[in-house]
């Protein structure tokens, strides 16, 4: 009974993707304290081992190996980024330890035959793209320009946008990219405007998310701006100032807790996470921290039911249905993500706040 349950976490706590990893680290540390204060899991203490991948593949491989081989954890949460998750897959697969990635790219869990040990918490990029396309279709927008950063996240978004737009019969009239460090997208936006786009979709990470609205405003291009789920941090909207007003984007419900009706099944957990996190860290919650929250809760639930045997945890997860911060997960053998587009809510910025989009 005094044996502790060991869970490994690998997040991009420092480096270029630290905006993902830091809230994730904070979240799991908060939960660990909570659980242990409440007596642990079936009396077993929960012990987290947290590694920093620095968002770097080599470091991620080492970190995962360290967790698996040195700390002998039963399950791994993370990594934060798609690339580092991909690099980690062979390691955990060989070691037969389940991994709950906190990234979003679909290739992390597909093809499912080769990803038996991998689960994913981030909502699918394709679903985010679908959500955006739904919205555009509803507003009669049929020609769009897309603007993506050349990061793993941006590139995955670009792939999905192109695929999904075709499904919806939406034409991409301009397809522009920029590198992650870029700080001025006016050239790309002019190309998009000149191509006759009726809306812009920007799919990227910081700081471009805040700069694109500013550039749009500067150029007086009066077409709607859609952003990816990556925009879901109120700080980005604040950084863009008035320019961010009216930006439309899909996001997990954690970004709009106050607008979710009490009857919604996620309401309770959303509220718990938000108030918990914000009171401990005096900072806004983000969807990314939410991925880690769901992952650890899932792991705890599995351990409660089947103990800390990795294989059993994997089998348990494959049959689980779980209502989390990110949505309602319905895992199956072939679907290790378990979320669909209903996990998203379309939000917009109004008076410097995120609100659910209402026409």
């Amino acid at each position, binding site marked *: 009974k005094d044996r502790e349950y060991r869970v490994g976490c690998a997040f991009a706590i420092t480096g270029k993707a630290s905006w993902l990893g830091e809230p994730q680290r904070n979240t799991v540390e908060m939960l660990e304290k909570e659980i242990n204060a409440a007596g642990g899991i079936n009396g077993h203490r929960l012990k987290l081992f947290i590694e920093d991948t620095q968002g770097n*593949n080599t*470091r991620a*491989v080492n970190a995962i190996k*360290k967790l698996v081989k040195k700390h002998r954890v039963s399950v791994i949460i993370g990594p934060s980024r798609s690339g580092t998750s991909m*690099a980690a897959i062979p390691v955990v697969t060989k070691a037969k330890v389940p991994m709950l990635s906190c990234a979003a790219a679909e290739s992390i869990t597909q093809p499912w035959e*080769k990803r038996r040990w991998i689960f994913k918490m981030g909502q699918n990029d394709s679903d985010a793209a679908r959500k955006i396309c739904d919205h555009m279709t509803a507003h009669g927008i049929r020609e769009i320009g897309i603007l993506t950063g050349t990061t793993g996240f941006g590139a995955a978004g670009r792939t999905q946008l192109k695929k999904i737009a075709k499904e919806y019969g939406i034409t991409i009239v301009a397809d522009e990219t920029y590198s992650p460090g870029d700080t001025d997208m006016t050239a790309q936006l002019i190309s998009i405007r000149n191509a006759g786009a009726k809306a812009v979709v920007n799919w990227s990470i910081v700081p471009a998310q805040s700069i694109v609205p500013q550039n749009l405003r500067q150029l007086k291009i009066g077409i709607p701006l859609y952003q990816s789920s990556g925009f879901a941090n109120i700080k980005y909207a604040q950084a863009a100032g008035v320019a961010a007003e009216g930006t439309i984007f899909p996001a997990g419900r954690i970004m709009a807790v106050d607008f979710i009706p009490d009857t919604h099944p996620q309401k309770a957990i959303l509220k718990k996470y938000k108030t918990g996190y914000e009171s401990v860290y005096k900072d806004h919650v983000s969807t990314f921290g939410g991925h880690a929250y769901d992952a650890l809760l899932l792991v705890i639930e599995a351990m409660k039911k089947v103990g800390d045997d990795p294989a059993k945890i994997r089998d348990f997860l494959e049959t689980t249905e779980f209502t989390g911060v990110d949505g309602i997960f319905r895992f199956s053998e072939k679907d290790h993500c378990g979320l669909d587009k209903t996990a998203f809510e379309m939000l917009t910025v109004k008076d410097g706040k995120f609100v659910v989009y209402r026409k």
Partner: protein
Amino acid sequence: MVKKDYFGLCALALGVAGTPLLIQNDYYLGILVFTALNCLACTGLSLLMGYAGQISMGNAAFVGLGAYTSAILTVRLGWNPWLAMLAGVLLVLAIAMLIGIPSLRLKGHYLGMATLGFGSIVHIVSVAATGLTGGPEGINDIPPLGFGSILLDSDLRFFYFSWAVLILGLFLALNLIHSRIGRGLRSVHGSEDAAESVGVDTAAYKIRVFTIGAAYASVSGSLYASYVSYIDPGPFDVMHSVLMVTMVAVGGMHNVWGAVIGAALLSVLPEALSSASEYFEFIGVAYDTDYDMLIYGGILLSIMLFLPGGLLDGLARLIRLPGKLALRLKGGTGQNG
């Protein structure tokens, strides 16, 4: 000097053979694999920097080209991994020649910038040519290397293999250094005019050593791809080129062993730091991963400030210190008497 080098090589081989007796954990073996790969690339770079006195800030591009050639040929075209690796080397040789001929006419910082620019271009192409390289999403499921039915798919096997390759690489590099050609290279560093005056074709030598270094990098990249079995453009950006230059300089430029030691240190250091929080926790001090960068920078700075000749030289001086002190004392008494 010559003898010492080859003794060192034998000692290294023995050490490698014995390591798995001490270390069985795949985690540590994995770190050592990456260490070997970095050492291999840096060995090539040190031939260029330490011996020919030229700088290349684009070495990661050659590592990347090797890795991508291996990955693309094996995954997309189903080539045998060995053949793909060879193709990588050939491709890199050709590209290095092509870029080396105009670049190596440049000197100092200008050469640095040209190679850096080349490195960035390769990186940008690997990001933007999504059809070929998968772009930022990378290429996964790269098959492992193998000998017949023995696949190099465990950490232990790859550990032996990668270090064997490194030792072979070092052996070849040492042969080169202690040869007529090697002296030619070093003379280019000392004085190009004097080298030319005794018949050394300095331009050709610089290009040769540049391509040799690139080939080392390419092999290192191919091995990386097959070991990790996933690559994306991340590990091949210009900062990694800068890191490699740093590794060579930290170890001590004027000797391949310096490159090996520097590469080893800077490969292991981040891993050691990642455990720092555990030690600090142990002695009851709150520690944040964020401090890693400060400690890393501090260590690097201290080495450069306090060990002017690099780590290798520092170690050597430490070993020779007692002898020198004795000499000094003797000199002192001789003076008075």
